[in-house]
């Protein structure tokens, strides 16, 4: 049963992800980020998203 996001989240989540990635790229690589720091920023964002997903499962296991 594939999960469906509420419309509000469908708009905000990608935006939030982009902001997180940009922020992390800046924090890790400064003004001239290397390929590694961009990759690391993506990995961290992914990890945060995964943690968010797990919180969603914990809060509403019936939906999954």
């Amino acid at each position, binding site marked *: 049963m594939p999960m469906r996001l509420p419309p509000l989240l469908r708009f905000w989540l990608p935006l939030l992800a982009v902001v997180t990635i940009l922020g992390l790229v800046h924090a890790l690589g400064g003004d001239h980020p290397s390929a590694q720091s961009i990759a*690391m920023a993506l990995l961290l964002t992914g990890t945060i998203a995964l*943690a968010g997903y797990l919180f969603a499962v914990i809060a509403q296991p019936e939906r999954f």
Partner: protein
Amino acid sequence: MTSFPRVPFLRMPRGPRHERRHVERPRHQGLWRRALIDAVRKLDPRLTVTNPVMFVTWCGTALCLLLTLSPDLFDGPDAGQSRGFNGLISLTLLATLLFANVAEALAEGRGKAQADALRRTQARTEARRLADDGSIERVDSSALRRGDRVQVEAGDVIPADGEVIDGVASVDESAITGESAPVLKEAGSDVAGSVTGGTRILSDQLTLRITADPGKGFIDRMIALVEGAERTKTPNEIALTVLLAVLTQVFLIAVATLRPVAGFLGQAPSVVTLIALLVALIPTTIGGLLSAIGIAGMDRVAQFNVIATSGRAVEACGDVNVLVLDKTGTITLGNRLAEEFLPVGDHSVMDLAMVALAASCFDQTPEGRSIVRLAERLGATLAFDPSTARGIDFSARTRMSGSDTPEGVEYRKGAVEAIKGFVRSRGGQVPGALDDTFEQVSSLGGTPLAVCQGNAVLGVIHLKDIIKPGIRERFEQLRRMGIRTVMLTGDNPITAGVIAREAGVDDFIAEATPEDKISVIQREQALGKLVAMTGDGSNDAPALAQANVGVAMNSGTQAAKEAANMVDLDSDPTKLIDIVTIGKQLLITRGALTTFSIANDVAKYFAILPALFVEAGLGPLNVMQLASPRSAVLSAMVFNALIIPALVPLALRGVQFRPLSAEQLLQRNLLIYGVGGLVAPFVGIKLIDVVVNTLHLV
């Protein structure tokens, strides 16, 4: 490859049910092939997302595969990442995912095979619909609607679920029950009045009123259920999913923070080893097998020829505190037999036998026939010509039966109170000895039937109940499992008490009416208890709906089957006890694998952490003396992947249940799965490490 999925039946005391001839069960042909294809198909992340543990594993696998292609993604070329090592870790992760998927697909496959077999019975047929004016039109079975009337005759497949409104016929229901003996169907009867679409009529002709629209019939529901199309997580599964998600979250944080923490010492571990650590720690064993356990539980119930309407119902079985059982058919064999004639007053045994014979000559019930046999054995003969006499049928209101001769002699037998009333109404006297004899029979656990001729009471027939062999032991087991049994019977309290004592039930309700059933259930539920019961008649429907687990007999009415959450295709009330065992087994299997999974983590830490941080001086923690950091990580991952297929048989078959007390069960299972879960990975990882190094894999 053929022997593996053939999961044996539970080892349980086998009653006469098993001696019956069953039609061939659907063969599990191509089960493995289908499971493997399904396992690959289930790699779709949109399907994995319903299982938090496996979804995290999925993400880790994807990342590892990426790092195999591009090892320098995160740490740059100086970090010395090895593509080969990353590839090996990716393979173990992929194997973990596939093994879990295969387990689920195998469990589902057995249900699908059963559904296919059922679907074959559903081939479209032509039906003869009766129009209002009595004319017959030929329509496709899919065009039938609720309320239509159809005619079927010998050789036809019954086009849809319905109730008989006219005719008597024998029907072959083996397609759904597996029982080859034909069943008699006739109008007006509570139990024999309903027919199921897809069964075949063998003789004569029936007129039916259709009770289900196309796609909503009994077989359709059964197909949906065994196929798992409507499978939703059960309450306990949901609670367990939460716990597993929390543990996964805890380990995700612990592992993700490990890189900066170790980075403080200048020893940030590589992303691949961190993924390996994460997947090793999150409970993949139970996460991968959780849904397979649930599906297999449903399937085991189905193998007992019971169709459960939901996994929730099977799970509830494990929690049942009280079983409400009908005496007849469950605790005692269905038929009571005449044991003895006990005359009262100055009547002789022969007088009594003669009158009993006269009162029973029209009685076709097993009890009536046994009275005739006993009387004839004693040499009694019929005093009138039965063709001229009139039989009086038993009714629940009069509670007696008998025969009237043309000369006006009334022979009656029936409940003692009813006969007393009858005799008084005819101006007779009730001898005082009747009550003594009545109590004498009752105290022996028998059912007393008083016999009279006109206004004279002749005596009492002692009908004896035969308690099913082995039932006492079953109740003893149930008691040890903490389940109370309540027997319901229409007998008087004394008889009921004796039978209850003999059978070993905990409680009984005598002279019970259908309303008593529901009030017993409500009373127990008010105490927070879960109640299971069986029933077949229409008047059982409210009680079946009220009970937490209601098992309807397939021979029962449509109303009962609708109200129940399980239907027993063999119509064997004792099966309730087996179903309770399956429910318990389901919960135990889940608990055991969860405990095992979590206990495994201790060893995995000792394998991976020292390997990760040799330079931080954690070398002495390498208690298993694994050869190298890389082989340690790889061995832990291989163990983690292999433990899933190793436990698949256990997940599908279920942990063997023993009727022990909770304390004993806990102690036993803790020793096996808790302590075993602590020790097994130490041994397993060490062995795999030896193999890995012998093969020079890293």
